[in-house]
């Protein structure tokens, strides 16, 4: 059974060792940073590509973000996704508004004859961590949804999924069409190949511009938590430091 799969990803900065904010405390200073997507979402993209390789069909990647987010969409297409949808938004939308914009795009796709059998989300976005966009989309579409998945298999026209819980894995089984939110560890994503990168440049990318509604979770300001960057006590250099380390371990009651 060929599948039609959609993956939703979000462009975020690679913050490195320290987060620096812009003067107005509304956003991270990203001038010297590269960008990526959440590892959870990378695993969603990899799973979609594998499913299409096995079962045939077509895959689409979607993001709501600035024009520069085309970079992340091309990265996903370099891994094997067929086409991309860019929903242009300069400022971050909250969870409700993000879901609404994605739903509008899905409705437009449907009107153009494209129905998705399976939609991948990250369990949570890397930056906002709202834990909600996938579930909101599932409700609006009236489709089953399981979250935080570490294993997905097609079985009898439906899905058999596993979620890690303390002491084991909980198994869910339900029919397609469906929504899943996934976590890193679902698979080990491939690296893009050079031919993959070349092909990605020519793959189709559609752009739409949703309106940003008033935010239900409305940012006042960002704050870097205290306690970042209090220098460590240097116990020594090289192997000679071993006795000082043992002393620290002794104080902790471990030796």
């Amino acid at each position, binding site marked *: 059974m060929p599948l039609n799969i959609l993956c939703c990803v979000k462009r975020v900065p690679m*913050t490195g*060792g320290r987060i620096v904010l812009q003067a107005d405390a509304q956003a991270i200073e990203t001038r010297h940073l590269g960008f990526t997507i959440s590892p959870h979402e990378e695993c969603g993209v990899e799973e979609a590509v594998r499913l299409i390789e096995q079962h045939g069909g077509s895959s689409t990647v979607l993001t709501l973000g600035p024009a520069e987010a085309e970079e992340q969409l091309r990265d996903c297409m370099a891994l094997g996704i067929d086409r991309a949808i860019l929903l242009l938004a300069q400022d971050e939308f909250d969870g409700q508004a993000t879901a609404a914009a994605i739903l509008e795009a899905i409705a437009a796709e449907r009107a153009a004859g494209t129905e998705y059998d399976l939609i991948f989300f990250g369990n949570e976005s890397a*930056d906002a961590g709202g834990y909600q966009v996938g579930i909101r989309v599932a409700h609006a579409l009236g489709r089953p949804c399981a979250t935080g998945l570490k294993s997905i298999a097609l079985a009898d026209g439906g899905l058999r999924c596993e979620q890690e819980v303390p002491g084991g894995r909980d198994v869910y089984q339900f029919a397609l069409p469906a929504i899943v939110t996934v976590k890193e560890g679902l698979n080990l994503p491939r690296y893009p190949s050079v031919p993959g990168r070349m092909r990605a440049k020519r793959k189709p990318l559609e752009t739409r511009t949703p309106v940003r509604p008033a935010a239900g979770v409305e940012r006042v300001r960002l704050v870097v938590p205290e306690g970042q960057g209090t220098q460590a*006590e*240097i116990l020594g250099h090289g192997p000679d430091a071993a006795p000082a380390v*043992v002393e620290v371990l002794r104080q902790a009651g471990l030796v």
Partner: protein
Amino acid sequence: MAVLVLVEHVGGTADDVSRQALALARGYAEAAGQPLEAVLIGAGADQAAAGLGDLGVQTAHVAVHDGLSAYAPQAWGRTLADLVERLAPVALIAPGSERATEAMAHAAAIADLPLAANCIEAAPGDPATVTRLRWGGSLLEQARLHGAVKLFTVAPHMVEATAASAAVQTTVAEFTPALTDADLAVRVVERAQTDSGGGISLADAKVVVSGGRGTGSAEGFAPVEALAAALGGAVGCSRAVTIAGWRPHTDQVGQTGTKIAPEIYIPCGISGATQHMAGCKGAKRILAINTDPDAPIVANADYAVIGDLHEVLPAITAAIAKARGG
């Protein structure tokens, strides 16, 4: 017009993260001048509900429905949304555990209300004001929370689980939510046991020794494993290691890996990216081993040894053996 809290429970008592959520919610309810009420779902809910007096809960609503015997996320969400409709509380608050968060997102979707996840502070009002975690806790966001009912979760292990200043008598009230077949379409059909290999789980380990890109290879973990074994601890790693395929993702510490809370954390050859640090904020002490004195991990550790992990770790393991032998 109560403040309603979803309380999760094990063995007939409220669990730790729910007690933390109740502590924050109690302050919120006092500031709002409203009573604190709870909602409980699943086996053992009755018993847990009756024990909430010390935590200041005046009324505990226990959901009773055949469909709620196995975990079904949308059914939990419907149960919450249903109760919100009946009680019209000023706020619905839940612990930030995976299940409670999932149920809250379903409730928010059903009721079409905003939801703020992982809050560490909240003050009532219209809008309410909250401080919430972004980037797994590496960044905070102060926000105005709108909506007729304020929906938010409380970040685990960030708020102290205090008891109420005066215990109250909790009234237990049962209710039956109106669940549809669709609400029960996704539910746990089976619990697969995972083989822990008999080792110590990363999340619960008292000592964690982790290796990063600085180990150089899968084989480069030998001195990391040796020190972990000497201390009876677990081995962890950074994401650079898992994406290189040197260790399984189950070993990864960080924002998208495991969150650890050991007595001592020993990261070796790990630079200390914010996403890695998000996983070890619960560590009592951090002892970093790194060739680079300017690595962010050194700035964020309590102790550091500057040097090559392949030389430093064997020396530490040997010194431990010597200290124990002598």
